[in-house]
Structures are given as structure tokens and as C-alpha cells.
């Protein structure tokens, strides 16, 4: 067993976690105002934004990956702008993976936060406004602390979902060791070259870690719900 783990390369796992961590952080900052807006608005445009946000859930990752690849490549204005003006190349490197993951995992951050915000007693938010507090302070000090289970779900599921992504990563990033070769891509490659032992070990590690992450979310949420009764 120990010899089996000896020759194992943990780089892909580290890369997966780095990618997931950065993506979660960026998505949290983007999704907070977006989810708040969606939860409070009565605009006729709301369904449109909701559908757009949820699109990555139903689209095949290859479709999403293809469009992102086209949009970020040097043949598109966006890709040219980033490369020429900012000097950032966005495909087949880690930065490109982060951008792609942000699109891919967006609904997993926005949806739990939105439904959390929607479940808050509106009077509580109004009481905060009447107390002289602005929107930002109300969100940070009243809204977020009162939706801890939704907040935890949003952060952890986004993280786990990004760790588990495969199709988009392969399309946008390819498989460059220590740059874009994340755990899921590594497993795919082991299977391709019929190295089933390593594929087994990698897969088992993914299964166990994913399970532990989800278990911790559910345990935390169970405890929170009891304390709020």
C-alpha cells in the first residue's frame, strides 16, 4: 500500500484545490451583490437574469468550455484585449482555468445565497435600514449572519463543484502538468494509458474527500437549524 502511494504525484490535487479556492473567493465577491439584487428586485428582468445564471447547470461542460475557449482565444476581441493591453494570456494556462471555473460554478454560489436572502424576514432588513444602516452594512451584519447554513452550502458546494469539474477544464486548459492538469484530468489520462492502479487511487481520494466535505456541510447545517428553532 505504502509503495503504491510512494510514486504518486500530488501536484494535480494541489492544483485542483488551488483552483477551487481562488474560484470560490472570486465567486463569493461577484455573487454576493448579484444574489442580493436577485433576492430583492421586483424587476421584470429578474427571470432573465435567473435563467442566465442557471445556464451552466444545464449546459454540457463541453459547450460551455467551447464558448469560453472561443471567447478567450486570440481570435476574439476579448482575448486580444487581454493579451495586447494587459499582457495576460487566457487559454491553456491557470488564469484561463480560473475564468472558466467562475462561469462554470457561478450558479452554485448564487442560488443558495439568493434563496437564503429571500428567506430572511423583510422586516428584519427594514429594521436595520430604520436603524440608520446602509445596504452594505445590513448585508454584512444582519443578512449574512442570519443565513449561515445557506452561506456554508454556497461556499462549500462551489468549492467541491470546482474540484470536480472536468469538461470545461479540459477544453480551456488542456493538460499541462502543474499548470492546468487538475486531479480529474489526471485520472482521465491514467485511464487512457490504462494505468488503472493510479486511476483507482486518485479516484478513491476524490470520493473520500468529496464525501467528507458534503458530510461536514450537512452536519453543520443540521446543528445550525437546531440552534435557530
Amino acid at each position: 500500500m505504502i509503495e503504491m502511494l510512494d510514486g504518486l504525484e500530488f501536484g494535480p490535487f494541489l492544483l485542483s484545490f488551488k483552483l477551487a479556492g481562488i474560484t470560490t473567493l472570486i465567486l463569493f465577491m461577484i455573487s454576493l451583490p448579484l444574489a442580493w439584487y436577485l433576492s430583492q428586485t421586483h424587476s421584470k428582468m429578474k427571470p432573465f437574469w435567473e435563467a442566465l445564471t442557471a445556464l451552466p447547470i444545464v449546459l454540457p461542460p463541453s459547450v460551455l468550455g467551447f464558448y469560453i475557449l472561443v471567447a478567450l482565444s486570440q481570435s476574439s476581441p476579448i482575448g486580444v484585449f487581454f493579451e495586447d493591453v494587459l499582457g495576460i494570456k487566457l487559454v491553456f494556462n491557470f488564469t484561463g482555468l480560473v475564468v472558466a471555473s467562475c462561469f462554470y460554478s457561478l450558479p452554485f454560489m448564487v442560488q443558495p445565497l439568493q434563496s437564503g436572502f429571500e428567506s430572511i424576514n423583510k422586516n428584519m432588513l427594514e429594521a436595520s435600514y430604520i436603524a440608520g444602516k446602509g445596504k452594505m452594512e445590513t448585508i454584512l451584519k444582519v443578512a449574512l449572519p442570519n443565513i449561515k447554513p445557506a452561506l456554508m452550502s454556497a461556499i462549500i458546494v462551489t468549492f467541491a463543484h470546482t474540484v470536480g469539474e472536468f469538461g470545461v477544464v479540459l477544453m480551456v486548459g488542456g493538460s499541462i502538468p502543474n499548470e492546468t492538469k487538475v486531479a480529474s484530468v489526471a485520472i482521465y489520462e491514467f485511464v487512457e494509458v490504462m494505468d488503472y492502479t493510479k486511476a483507482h487511487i486518485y479516484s478513491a481520494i476524490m470520493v473520500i474527500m468529496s464525501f467528507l466535505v458534503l458530510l461536514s456541510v450537512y452536519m453543520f447545517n443540521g446543528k445550525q437549524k437546531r440552534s435557530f428553532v
Partner: protein
Amino acid sequence: MIQIDINKKLHGANGEMDLCVRLDILQGDFIALAGQSGSGKTTLLRILAGLEDSNGTISVEGEIWQDGKSSLMPQKRKIGFVFQDYALFGNMSVEQNLLYVQKDRALASKLLELTQLSQLKDRMPSTLSGGQKQRVSLCRAMMNRPQLLLMDEPLSALDPTMRTKLQQEILALHKEFGTTTLMVSHDPSEIYRLAQRVVVLNWGKIINDGTPKDILLKTSGSAKFSFEGELLDIVQVDVIYVAIVAIGQQLVEVVVSDDEAKALEIGQSVSVSTKAFTPRLKRV
């Protein structure tokens, strides 16, 4: 002086309705806002708080809160609002709920003492009873020393003993802080005990405005003793008719004549009054 002259179109459960209120309130007054549900009472409070927009003007002690052009945000109006469902911040202790409004520890502890909550200052709202929660909510509303205290049926979810206790506390705070108070209430005894003036809204308009005594004591002419109730049934007993009337929680029987019985309809609102004898009041 608080001068209110507002109107707003409402889409209520009973169709479209114009809320149209013109009201001058003296500083330090305690006003009860009464009327059937759906008559626009809560909306009026929310407009005063700046939580809903409307046409018209609101000025408070010479300061314009709202005119045709602009409207002051709720954050900038010096108001306290007590919600029927308390709306306490669930993530903060009792004391933190108060300090969130204003970092004034002295005022917070004074308010908690006045409402006998000092012992509970570190408790979380979820562990409090309904009466305790509403007291915290009342204290929180007083934390920014409001010019105008708005209360939306604050006591309707509480039992009668707790109501009476809280009514005294509301009155004490109202006097202590010299605030002007506007309170939605359906309970005549509560209105009588607390308010100097009653404003009755119906279908978005003020239909009655006066002292609680004038408006709540429903006696007319020389009748000294009068109750309103619902006619439940008329039963013929031998040659007379007995009307059964529900007054509050009690059913009473009243003898009516043949003609009277024919003129009455079951389900009608009726008043039962007498003037021929002196009612005796006894402890129960």
C-alpha cells in the same frame, strides 16, 4: 408639528384603492390608528418610515421628509418602528440588538432597566418569549431617540396580561422620551388607555378623528349603556321572540317584539342598549 398630506394608489386584496391621508399631529401626541384590515393603516406607517414611496408631502418639525421632488431615506428619518412580528436581529444578543442602532451603552442599559430586561441582556432572541421579544423590539426602536415612533399592532400577538403590562411600558417610554407616537391598534381598551387621539381609516380615507372617548363610547342620545354585537338567531318562545346576540366573547338574550323580529336580519350588526335602569358593576 408633523404634517402629513399624502396619497398613493394601492392594489389591495379588495381591488384598487386610493390611500389619501391629510393629518396634522402635535408633537408629543399619542395617536391610535384604527380601522378594518386592508384600510391602509400599515401602508401609512410604512410611508411615514420611508419604506414605501407615495405622492405628497411629509414634514416633521419643519424638516421636509418628503415632498414632490425628493424623499428622505429611512436611514435619515429619526424614527423608531415596532413590527408586529418583532423583527429582532437573530444573530445578536438582546443588548447587541440595541447597540446596533446606536453605540450608547448608557441608553441601552437605561431602556433595558425600564422594561425589566437587564437580566436577559446577553440572551439570544430565539430563547425569549413573545412578550420579551416585543419589549426588546420596543427598546431597540427607542435607541435612536426617535422623533416619531411607529408601531404596527405591536401587542396583537400577546396574551391579555402581557398586553396590559406592555401598554404601561409603552406609555412610560412615550412620556420619558417625549416622542410622538403613532400606533395601529384594534383593541378599544388599549386605545383608551394609551391614546389621546384616535384616527379611523376606512378604504384609504380618514372617516373619524377625535378623542378615544368620543369615538369609542358608542352611546347615542340618552342611552347610557350600549354594546355592538352580531345577531346570531331569533327564536320564538310562546308569544315572544328572543334574539341571541354575540357581544365580544359573550352571548346574550334580548326579548324583542313581533315587529322588531320581522325587521331584523340574522347576521346583522346590532346595538343592544338600555337607559331605563342603572347598571350595577360588581367584581367578578
